C-alpha cells in the first residue's frame, strides 16, 4: 500500500493541522525581515539622489553650463571649463583604453589557457581592485614626472587605466557569448582567423562591447583621485578659445593639440572636490550644482547603455 492509500484508509487527510501555524508564522516573519532589510538598503541610494537633486537643483542655471568661472565675489559664472575638461579627459581615456582593451579581450577569449590569456584575466581582476589614487600616482610617475608638468594627457592616461579592466572584461564576456557555430561557419568558408574576428565575431558582440565602453566611461568620468596628481585642475582652461585662437593664428594641428593636451585641465569631480572645501558659500553652492550635473551625466550614460542594449537586441532578433 502506498502512503497515500494508507492515509486515505485512516481517513485522516487534513490541510489545517494545528502544528502548521508555526510554519506559516516563520514564513511570514522571514519574509517581512527580508522586505524591511531591502528597504533599509535602498534608503541611502534614494537619499543621496534626492538630496543632491534638492540641494544642487536650487543652483542650477544656464550660466553653469555656458560660463567660465568668475572671481570670488563676482556674481554668476559657471563651470564650463570643467565640462570641457571632463569631455576632453573622457575622449583621451577612450582613445587610450578602447583599442588595446578590445584586442586584449579578443586574445584572452581566443586563447584562454595560454600564459598570456591567463595573465590578461588575472591582470584585469587585480587592476579593477587597485585603489584609483594608486593609478593616479602611477600616471604621475610615468608621465608628469617625465614631462615635468601636469597635463590633460596624463589625466586621460590615468582614466584609461581605470576604464581598461571594465572594457576588457565586458568585451571578453561578450565575445564568449558569440556562438562557436558562427566562428566555424566563417572558418569553413575559408575566412582567416583575423577576418572571422573582424567581420563575424566583432559585429555579433558589438552591442555588449559598446555597453562595456559606456559603463567604463561612466566610471572613469566620475573619478577624482587619479586626476589629483595628473590633470591637477585649471580654472582658466578654455578648449574652445584654444582651438579658435589657434585657427585664427594659423597654427598647425599639432601645435593646437599640444596646447590642448599639454596643460592641466579641470574635470567635474575635481571641481566638486575643490569647491566643496572652500569656505565661501557661493563656491559651496556651485559644488552642489556640479554634483547634480555629474550625477545626471553618469545616470544618463548608464541609461543610454541600457537602452542601447535593449533597442539593438530587439532589432537584431527581428
Amino acid at each position, binding site marked *: 500500500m502506498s502512503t497515500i492509500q494508507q492515509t486515505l484508509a485512516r481517513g485522516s487527510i487534513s490541510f489545517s493541522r494545528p502544528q502548521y501555524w508555526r510554519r506559516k508564522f516563520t514564513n511570514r516573519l522571514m519574509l517581512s525581515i527580508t522586505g524591511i532589510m531591502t528597504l533599509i538598503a535602498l534608503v541611502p541610494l534614494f537619499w543621496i539622489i534626492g538630496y543632491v537633486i534638492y540641494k544642487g537643483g536650487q543652483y542650477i542655471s544656464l550660466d553653469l553650463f555656458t560660463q567660465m568661472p568668475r572671481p570670488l565675489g563676482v556674481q554668476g559664472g559657471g563651470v564650463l571649463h570643467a565640462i570641457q575638461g571632463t569631455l576632453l579627459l573622457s575622449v583621451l581615456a577612450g582613445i587610450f583604453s578602447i583599442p588595446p582593451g578590445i584586442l586584449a579581450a579578443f586574445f584572452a577569449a581566443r586563447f584562454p589557457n595560454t600564459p598570456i590569456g591567463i595573465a590578461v584575466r588575472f591582470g584585469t581582476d587585480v587592476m579593477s581592485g587597485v585603489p584609483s589614487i594608486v593609478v593616479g600616482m602611477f600616471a604621475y610617475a610615468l608621465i608628469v614626472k617625465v614631462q615635468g608638468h601636469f597635463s590633460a594627457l596624463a589625466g586621460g592616461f590615468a582614466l584609461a587605466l581605470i576604464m581598461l579592466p571594465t572594457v576588457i572584461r565586458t568585451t571578453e564576456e561578450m565575445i564568449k557569448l558569440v556562438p562557436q*557555430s558562427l566562428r*566555424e561557419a*566563417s*572558418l*569553413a*568558408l575559408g575566412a582567416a582567423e583575423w577576418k572571422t574576428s573582424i567581420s563575424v565575431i566583432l*559585429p*555579433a558582440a558589438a552591442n555588449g562591447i559598446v555597453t562595456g565602453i559606456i559603463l567604463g566611461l561612466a566610471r572613469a568620468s566620475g573619478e577624482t583621485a587619479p586626476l589629483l596628481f595628473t590633470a591637477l585642475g585649471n580654472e582658466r582652461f578654455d578648449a574652445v578659445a584654444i582651438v579658435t585662437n589657434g585657427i585664427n593664428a594659423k597654427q598647425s594641428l599639432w601645435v593646437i593639440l599640444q596646447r590642448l593636451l599639454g596643460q592641466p585641465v579641470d574635470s567635474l569631480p575635481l571641481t566638486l572636490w575643490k569647491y566643496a572645501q572652500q569656505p565661501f558659500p557661493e563656491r559651496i553652492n556651485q559644488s552642489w550644482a556640479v554634483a547634480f550635473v555629474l550625477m545626471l551625466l553618469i545616470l544618463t550614460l548608464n541609461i543610454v547603455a541600457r537602452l542601447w542594449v535593449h533597442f539593438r537586441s530587439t532589432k*537584431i532578433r*527581428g
Partner: protein
Amino acid sequence: MITKEPLTNMITEDKTSTHSPRINLKFVREGMGEEDIQKTMVKVDNLSVYYGKFRALTDINIEVKAKKITALIGPSGCGKSTLLRCFNRMNDLIQNVKIEGKITVDDLDIYAPDVDVVEVRRKIGMVFQRPNPFPKSIYDNVAFGPRLYGVNKRSKLDEIVQQSLMQAALWDEVKDKLKQSAYALSGGQQQRLCIARALAVEPEIILMDEPASALDPIATLKIEELMRELAVHYTIIVVTHNMQQAARVSDFTAFLTMNPDRSGMMVEYGLTSQIFTNPRDKRTEDYITGRFG
C-alpha cells in the same frame, strides 16, 4: 540514373514502414550499377586521428566518388563527424589533434605542408548540424564568401547571390526580403540559406554534418530533395543518424563503429543498395536492422 518519381511521393508512401526495422528498398535508387561509378574525388589512406592520447579514428580507407552522395552512418561517438571534419581540415582548430595517414582531394594531399587551408576550405564547403546563419541580412550571408575572395562589384555579387539562392531552392521564398535579417527565416529556410552560403564560393565538395537533424520532417524532405539536385554538380559527403535518410539520398554508404577501445573504425563501405540489402558484415546488418545502436 535518378528515378523519375519525385522523392516526395516515395516518402509519403513510406509512412507505414518507418516503424518497421527493415528499410524499404524502394528508396534506394535503382539501376545504379558499377558502370555509373565515376572518378574518385576524395581518397583516404590509413587515416588515424588522435585527440591528445585518445585515438578517435583508426585506419580509415575510403574512396569518395565524384558527383555522388556518400553517407557516413554509425552509432554516436564512432567518429563520423571527426572524419567529416578531416576533409576540410576543421579539426585543425582543435588543440592537441594529431592526424596520421593521407587524404587526397583530386590527387592533391590536403595535409601537405605547403597547402593553404583557405584554398582547401574554399573547394570543400560545409553545412552544419544546426543552421548557423550570420547575424546579418540574407543577402550579406550569401555574399560573405564571395566578398572574402575579393568579389566586390555589386552586379557580380547580385548575380552570385541570386544563383546560389536558386540552387539552394530558396530564391522564390526570399527574393523580396534579401535585406531582412537571416534570423527571421524558419529553421529549414536558415539551413537552405547556409547551403546557399556554402555554394556561393563554388566548392567542389560539400560536407554535411547531420544537416536535417534539427529540422521538422517537411523541412528535412526539402533538404533531401535539394541534396539530390546538388549531386548533379557537386560531390556530397553527409553524416546522418537517420538510416532512412541515408538509404533515400545516398549512392554510397560507409558504416563506422567503435572498437572496444572506443576509437572509431570503418566496418564496411559500398553502394548504398548493397549495404542496405546485402551487408557483408554482421555488425552492419545488426545496425541497419536496428538491433544495435
